[in-house]
C-alpha cells in the first residue's frame, strides 16, 4: 500500500555528553551530568523525567541547536556539530510556518535539500496522505486544529527522510483523545519507516505505550537513573496487567526523583526564562 521507500534510521551514541550554564550572577548550574547512551538504529527511545531535569536541553544538544559543554554525540559516525536536515525534530507547539500553506510547510525541508519543484510536490502530497490530510493541502496552519497541525509537522519531518527524529513532548498540548489517536498514528508511521526516534514526554503511560526502551532521568542535574526495555507487542493495551506492572515500576523510580525535585525547589535558584 505504501510506496515510500524507507530509508532506515541510524544509531545514535552519546559519550560523556554534559551541559552546564553560567547564570548572570556568575553561578554555574549543572544541567546535565555526563551521559553515555547508545540508541540502536530504528529504536524508539522515550525519555521521561521530572520537569527541569534537562530532557529538552538534551534533545536540543542532540539536534545540534545547543552546543554541549563536554562530550560528543554521533549519528551513525557523523559528529553532531549543528543542526542538519538529516536529523528531524517535532516540536511541542508544532512550529509550522504560518505564512505557508500546509503543503508548502511539508515541502520546506525538501526545498532546502534541493529537490526540484514538481518532485517536491509529489513527495509532500504522499506524506500528507500518510497523515490523512491531503484535503487540507491548501489550508493555512491557523485553519487547522492542534492535532491536525501536529500531523502536518510529523509529515514535514518525515518528508525529508531524516535518519533520526527528535520529538519534544509533541503531544503535550493536545487533548487526551487527540493525543491517543496521534500516538497510534505515530506508531503506525514509525513501524513503516523504521526511523530512530528519541521522544520526550511527561506521561508515563505514553512512554510505555510507545517505547522500545524508556530512559528515566533524575532531577537536576539530569543524568540517567534507570533504563527499562519494554518487550510488550504492539498495539499495547494500557489497562492490561503487563502494562500496569511496568507502569508501577516506572512510577516507583520516578516518585523518588519527583520528591527530590520538589525538595530542591525550595532551595534552587528561581527558574529562569
Amino acid at each position, binding site marked *: 500500500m505504501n510506496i515510500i521507500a524507507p530509508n532506515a534510521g541510524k544509531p545514535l551514541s552519546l559519550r560523556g555528553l554534559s551541559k552546564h550554564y553560567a547564570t548572570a550572577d556568575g553561578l554555574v548550574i549543572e544541567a546535565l551530568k555526563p551521559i553515555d547512551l547508545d540508541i540502536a538504529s530504528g529504536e524508539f527511545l522515550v525519555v521521561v523525567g521530572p520537569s527541569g531535569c534537562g530532557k529538552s536541553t538534551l534533545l536540543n544538544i542532540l*539536534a545540534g*541547536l545547543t552546543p554541549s559543554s563536554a562530550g560528543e554525540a554521533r549519528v551513525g559516525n557523523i559528529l553532531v556539530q*549543528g*543542526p542538519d*536536515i538529516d*536529523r*528531524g*525534530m517535532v*516540536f511541542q*507547539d508544532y*512550529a509550522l*510556518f*504560518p*505564512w*505557508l500553506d500546509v503543503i508548502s510547510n511539508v515541502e*520546506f*525541508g525538501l526545498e*532546502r*535539500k534541493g529537490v526540484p519543484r514538481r518532485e517536491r510536490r509529489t513527495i509532500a502530497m504522499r506524506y500528507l496522505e500518510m497523515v490523512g490530510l491531503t*484535503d*487540507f493541502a*491548501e489550508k*493555512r496552519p*491557523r*485553519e*487547522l*486544529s*492542534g*492535532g*491536525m497541525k501536529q500531523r502536518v509537522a510529523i509529515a*514535514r519531518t518525515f518528508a*525529508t527522510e531524516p535518519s533520526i527524529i527528535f520529538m519534544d513532548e509533541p503531544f503535550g498540548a493536545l*487533548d487526551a*483523545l*487527540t493525543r491517543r*489517536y496521534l500516538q497510534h498514528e505515530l506508531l503506525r508511521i514509525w513501524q513503516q519507516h523504521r526511523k530512530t526516534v528519541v521522544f520526550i514526554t511527561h506521561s508515563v503511560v505514553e512512554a510505555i505505550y510507545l517505547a522500545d526502551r524508556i530512559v528515566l532521568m533524575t532531577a537536576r542535574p539530569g543524568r540517567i537513573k534507570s533504563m527499562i526495555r519494554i518487550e510488550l507487542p504492539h498495539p499495547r493495551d494500557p489497562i492490561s496487567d503487563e502494562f500496569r506492572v511496568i507502569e508501577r515500576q516506572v512510577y516507583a523510580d520516578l516518585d523518588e526523583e519527583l520528591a527530590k525535585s520538589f525538595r530542591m525547589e525550595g532551595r534552587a535558584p528561581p527558574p529562569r526564562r
Partner: protein
Amino acid sequence: MTDAPAPAGARPSGTAARLFGQLAKLLSYLYAVIGVIAVWWAVVLIAKPHMSLLPSPLLTARTFVQLMASGELPSDAAYSICRVLAAWSLAALVAVPLGFAMGRWQRLERVLDPVVELFRPISPLAWIPLAILWFGIDEGGKIFVIFIGTFFPILLNTIAGAKTIDPVLIRAGRILGCADDASLFRKVVLPAALPQVIVGLRISFGTGWAAIIAAELVAARSGLGYLISNGMEVLRSDYVLVGMVTIGVIGVLFDTVFRIIDRRYNWMGE
C-alpha cells in the same frame, strides 16, 4: 476522529461576502461624503459667508474642474506625490535593513535604541526650519523632512516585527535545512516579520503625506501644500478647499492600495 472540520472550501460564497463587504465600505464612504457636503451647503445657505471665506460646494466643484482642466491641480498633486514617494522609498531603503539588524542583534539595538528614542518624539515639522536653512526651498529640503517623518514608523515597526518572531520558528528553520544566516533570513525571518514591516510602510506613508503638505505650506513653489497656502494669500478659499479635498482623496487612495497589499501578504489572519 476528534479533529476534522469539513474539508470542503466555502470559497464562492466567501468571495461574494468579501465583495459585498467592500461594497458596503464604499457605501459608507459615500454616506460620509454626502453628509459633509450637506452640512457644508447648509452652513453656506444659512450663514451666507463671503465667498472668499467659504464658497459653496458647487462653486468649489467648478473650481476643481477648472484647476483640473488647466493642469494646475494634477501637476501640484504629482509634485506632492513624487516628493513623498521619493523620500518614503529612501527611508524604507535605510529603515527596513536597519530595523532587521536592530531587531535581531540585541547589542546593536542596545546601542542605537537611545538615539532612536531621542529623535523619535521630534515632529518632522520641527525639522522644517533646519531643512530650509540647509537646503533652501529646493526639493532636498522637503525630501529631508519627509524622510525624517517616514523613517521612524518604518524603523520601529520593522524592529518590532523582527524581534517578536517566535523562536521556535527559527529553530524549525534551522532544523529544516536553513544552515546559514542568509537562508534563515530569507526563508524564516523575512516572511515572519513581513506583515509588521508592511504596517510600518503604510503608517509612514500616512505621516509622510501629512508632513509634505506642511513642508509645502512653508517652503515650496509647487505641490498641494503650495496650492493651499497660495489660495490663502490671494483670498481664494475655493483653491484651499479643492486642495484639501484632493489631499484627502489621495490619502485614502494610497491607504486602500496598502490595505490590499497588506491583505495579500499578511498571514496573521483576516
